[in-house]
């Protein structure tokens, strides 16, 4: 038997990474149609009026920030770009001030989300069996017990931070279990997530240092799994083969980084946004407490209205696209939240209709990059809301002005003070 030494060498590349950097531009947006930025506080606090305004008058906004990019706001434009992997690349899916070199495609740094066809299909196929509805159902009992233990810990408090003390912990625990990482490392994961998704406008040296910290951690975990294989996703990826060979070390680490980052922030945001809505909408909360069977339907509506995830693409070649003069390497911010509120696609698009039955929302994306964790996310969201509503049927916003939202491509409450009980 040969020793698996794929992960023993240093992974850090010498010198600055290839690719292009642009000047970082921050500060108030002058006009959302020509200068948008999803990292400014106004967008984080409430992006929907901005998106509605752009959809009505634009509908594809532009910005010179991030080295140039576009923001389609209509459902049909978002769908067309999601399906068009010929003209839009996924080689970077976080709109930032750095574009990886073209040779990064078709694999990208975090396959398969960063991959283009045909590689994408094969990298994705490796992950699919672990994330089917049937596979994730096996985690439901442990997830439910964990949610109960979180509520137990809130006992006696009048006001709790439901984002920090409840929603956040659920996906962290589930993904740590799946990857076989120590549960006590959870607090570090929050920092990794924040660095990756909210640290977009940090100086490049700091952004790189934070990424190195994440990958140092991941390589430590991977080496531990090489030495001590076990029944989890990390060992599965270490042993997986593609085209007759074990995976490249950066493929293993990149996929694990993806599962860790994408598995946490997104579901944390969906749980938090759902509780926020129910806290400020007593009629919906009371109806769900009285009719627990409505929850699966209601959950889809909450996913539509507060879809946490926005993706990005890079334009491959100069082209005119539906009237937009797109240049090679322009970003496209692919706003599933904006698509989900397009009145051309949804009746009463701007309202939460808690029993909406026909709901072709795109919270988990469209096309070949459909969120691989969607069944896991739905299980976590359903169990988190079931347990909360069963244990804490009466709650409201303790201080609406104290609620804070994450900026960037994954949006959800980061501070959510709720007053528990009828007092």
């Amino acid at each position: 038997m040969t020793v698996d030494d794929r992960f023993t060498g240093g992974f850090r590349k010498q010198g600055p990474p290839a690719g292009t950097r642009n000047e970082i531009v921050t500060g108030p947006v002058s006009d959302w149609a020509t200068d948008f930025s999803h990292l400014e506080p106004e967008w984080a606090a409430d992006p929907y009026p901005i998106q509605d305004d752009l959809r009505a008058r634009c509908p594809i906004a532009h910005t010179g920030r991030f080295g140039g990019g576009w923001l389609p706001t209509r459902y049909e434009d978002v769908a067309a770009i999601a399906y068009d992997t010929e003209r839009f690349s996924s080689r970077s899916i976080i709109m930032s001030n750095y574009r990886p070199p073209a040779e990064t495609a078709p694999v990208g740094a975090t396959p398969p989300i960063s991959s283009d066809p045909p590689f994408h299909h094969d990298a994705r196929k490796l992950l699919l069996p672990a994330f089917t509805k049937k596979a994730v159902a096996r985690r439901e009992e442990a997830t439910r017990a964990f949610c109960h233990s979180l509520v137990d810990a809130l006992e006696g408090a009048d006001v709790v931070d439901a984002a920090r003390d409840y929603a956040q912990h659920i996906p962290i625990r589930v993904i740590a279990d799946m990857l076989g990482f120590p549960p006590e490392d959870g607090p570090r994961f929050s920092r990794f997530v924040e660095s990756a998704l909210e640290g977009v406008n940090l100086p490049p040296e700091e952004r790189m240092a934070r990424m190195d910290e994440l990958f140092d951690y991941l390589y430590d975990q991977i080496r531990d799994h090489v030495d001590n294989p076990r029944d989890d996703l990390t060992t599965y990826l270490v042993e997986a083969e593609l085209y007759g060979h074990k995976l490249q070390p950066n493929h293993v680490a990149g996929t694990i980084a993806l599962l860790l980052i994408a598995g946490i922030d997104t579901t944390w945001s969906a749980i938090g946004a759902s509780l926020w809505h129910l806290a400020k909408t007593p009629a919906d909360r009371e109806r769900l407490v009285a009719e627990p069977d409505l929850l699966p339907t209601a959950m889809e509506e909450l996913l539509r209205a507060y879809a946490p995830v926005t993706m990005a693409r890079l334009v491959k070649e100069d082209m005119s696209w539906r009237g937009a003069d797109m240049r090679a390497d322009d970003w496209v911010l692919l706003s599933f939240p904006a698509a989900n509120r397009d009145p051309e696609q949804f009746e009463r698009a701007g309202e939460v209709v808690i029993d909406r039955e026909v709901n072709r929302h795109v919270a988990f994306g469209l096309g070949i990059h459909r969120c691989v964790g969607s069944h896991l996310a739905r299980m976590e969201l359903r169990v988190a809301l079931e347990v909360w509503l069963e244990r804490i049927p009466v709650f409201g916003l303790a201080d609406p002005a104290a609620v804070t939202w994450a900026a960037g491509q994954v949006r959800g409450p980061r501070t959510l003070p709720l007053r528990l009980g009828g007092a």
Partner: protein
Amino acid sequence: MKVQIDPGRCQGHGRCYDLAPGLFEEDDEGYGRVPGDGAVPPGQEQAARLAAANCPERAVVLTEEA
């Protein structure tokens, strides 16, 4: 009424087997599948329509027979 899944469009969102588990199932990779010939038993027409209307990829094909 008959249901089919267009495998060229299905991406495994799973809305069909969530909403109409009597008509659809998931395969080992999470893609939707119609066991049998897709004939919709009496009483399950509404579930079939819901599955079609909620598929984000429009991959569920309904054929209404005369």
